[in-house]
């Protein structure tokens, strides 16, 4: 479905430096049983966030009130594994609008773009810089500008530009999605099928 427009986001961030965070960690399979899209945020990182009795684990970052914000700064190779879009729904439903990492898994990145969560790929050095800054001062703000394709650590002014293809950028800025685009192509698709 069409989603919120994304232009510029200024927010504090939550650090999660673990590498190879797979979608089974983001949302374990046993929580995929819903037939609607809402409510997945409660189980985001479920098994890292709660113990078996359902008590919050103190050492997990989402249970640490020091950190909050709409940006998740994650370790390398984030979102590997299953194609479950539920992983992004959970991230969105929890309140994140942007995920930053030095490396994303393919399908995860696509899924993000399809529902309006912005995946920002930065250099490993810049990722480390962001993590260090947030950990040193949790009130550190980060600015993510989609029009300028730029991410800035506001406390120091250091910034880096990021890539996104023009079509996806346009979609995100306007809150359009691929289905809107494809539905408008119906006759071209019919012609393609007829010619095969």
């Amino acid at each position, binding site marked *: *479905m069409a989603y919120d427009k994304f232009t510029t986001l200024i927010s504090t961030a939550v650090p999660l*430096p*673990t*590498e*190879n965070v*797979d979608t*089974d*960690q983001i949302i*374990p*399979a*046993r929580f*995929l*049983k*819903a*037939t*609607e*899209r809402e409510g997945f945020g409660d189980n985001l990182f479920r*098994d890292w966030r709660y113990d*078996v009795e359902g008590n919050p684990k103190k050492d997990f970052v989402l249970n640490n009130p020091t950190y909050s914000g709409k940006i998740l700064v994650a*370790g*390398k*190779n984030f979102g*590997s*594994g*299953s*194609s*479950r*879009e*539920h992983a*992004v729904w959970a991230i969105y439903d929890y309140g994140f609008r942007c995920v930053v990492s030095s*490396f994303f*898994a*393919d*399908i995860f990145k*696509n*899924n993000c773009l*399809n*529902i309006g969560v912005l995946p920002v790929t930065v250099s490993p050095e810049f990722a480390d810089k962001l993590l260090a800054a947030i950990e040193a001062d949790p009130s550190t703000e980060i600015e993510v500008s989609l029009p300028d394709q730029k991410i800035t650590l506001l406390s120091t002014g250091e910034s880096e530009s990021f890539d996104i*293809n*023009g*079509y*996806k950028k346009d979609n995100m800025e306007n809150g359009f*999605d*691929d*289905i809107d*685009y*494809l*539905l408008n*192509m*119906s006759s*071209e*698709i019919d012609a*393609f*099928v007829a010619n095969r």
Partner: protein
Amino acid sequence: MEKKTLFDKIWDSHVVKSVPSGPDVFFIDKHFIHEVTSPVAFLNLEKRGIGVKYPERTIATPDHNVPTVDQDKTIKDQLSRMQVEKLRENCKKYGIELHDLGSAHHGIVHVIGPELGVTQPGMTIVCGDSHTSTHGAFGAIAFGIGTSEVEMVLATQCIMQSKAKKMRISVDGELGKGVTSKDIILYIISKISAAGATGYFVEYAGSAIQSLSMEARMTICNMSIEMGARGGLIAPDETTFNYLKGKQYAPKGEEWDKAVAYWKTLKTDEGATFDKEYHFDAADIEPMITYGTNPGMGIKVVGTIPSTEGLEGSNKTSFLKSLDYMGFEPGEPVKGKQVDYVFVGSCTNGRIEDIRSVAQFVKGHKKADNITAWIVPGSREVEKMAHEEGLVKILEEAGFELRQPGCSACLAMNDDKIPAGKYAVSTSNRNFEGRQGPGARTMLASPLTVAAVAITGKITDPREVF
């Protein structure tokens, strides 16, 4: 003439339109759906007030969430039941072919597609499941998609995708005794890492790959996603054609001849270039097993877990976190470690050849007392053959428990869970934390290694037992 890879040939012939500075509008020949990733897609179609454009191009089966006992009864878990009922409802409403629980071709979506002959060379195939890459074994472009894309395919038979980069992985030479296609793929992933093929579509080539059966090829393509690849594919050949001939949905008569003539053109042109190439020697590959929590963390069964030497920063922390979860120490051997469960099943190794090879190995033996052994056939057809060939009897005599088809303990959405802290050696494809149940410790291996573990009760090289 322009030299093209197999991937180029199939991709280029399915592009309806290239969006300037954007992705391609990519046409999908066949679409598989299951109960977990489709309900929201159908819900959104309804919200938009649109229908399914080409219902005959979609095929459905409930697999992820279904119980593997009493499949003829009402599903006890309320949420699972709702998902399965939604799937039935949606298939009925939109006229989509459903292979329901208990029907002759029910099973894991990636097992029944090939079995029915729906999967064919040259096709584009998607499913809301990352192991859709399995179908690439037939020389098809097959990959997993998210639910938004499931909705796109239902609504328009297209998705918006940028063409992936191209990688070729060649494995030449002869495989040693006790070495299977599962070992090949675990070996490759251990060499290039769990993210080593991200952004690529992989073609597997070389004499060792060509010598494999269709089922063994499927095991390899299945795990392409475990090194981050969008998908993997293998050029179709006589093995492919022989497998497909006579299958329910395979072309017949004159159509068959025409199809085979076309399929024979589906190979990488001599001199076509790849963005990246790897070469491996089959003789270097031995039975493999994983020791950590991503599929790149694999070693020889007779090998030792790497030490932390050379690792620093978050690399080292992540490595130690993984070993801590598994209860292992850096630098120690895995051979001889006690195991609690073995699981034979999943879309990686739940086909009839896998069950045959386990049965052949355990025949006349008994499983060790400390082992709980589950065999879950990938489909009803596999289950039926296993009965007819007397394999079930052999396995039951050895102390294995046979369950009904489904994804089962591969992702533990149903009751088939490995308890926290227990070790499972599994023929499935993912060893992520909690994948087989909260706290479960999974080690991935081939069906032969799993058979050896079942008999000895500990991590064992199959070549030493049988």
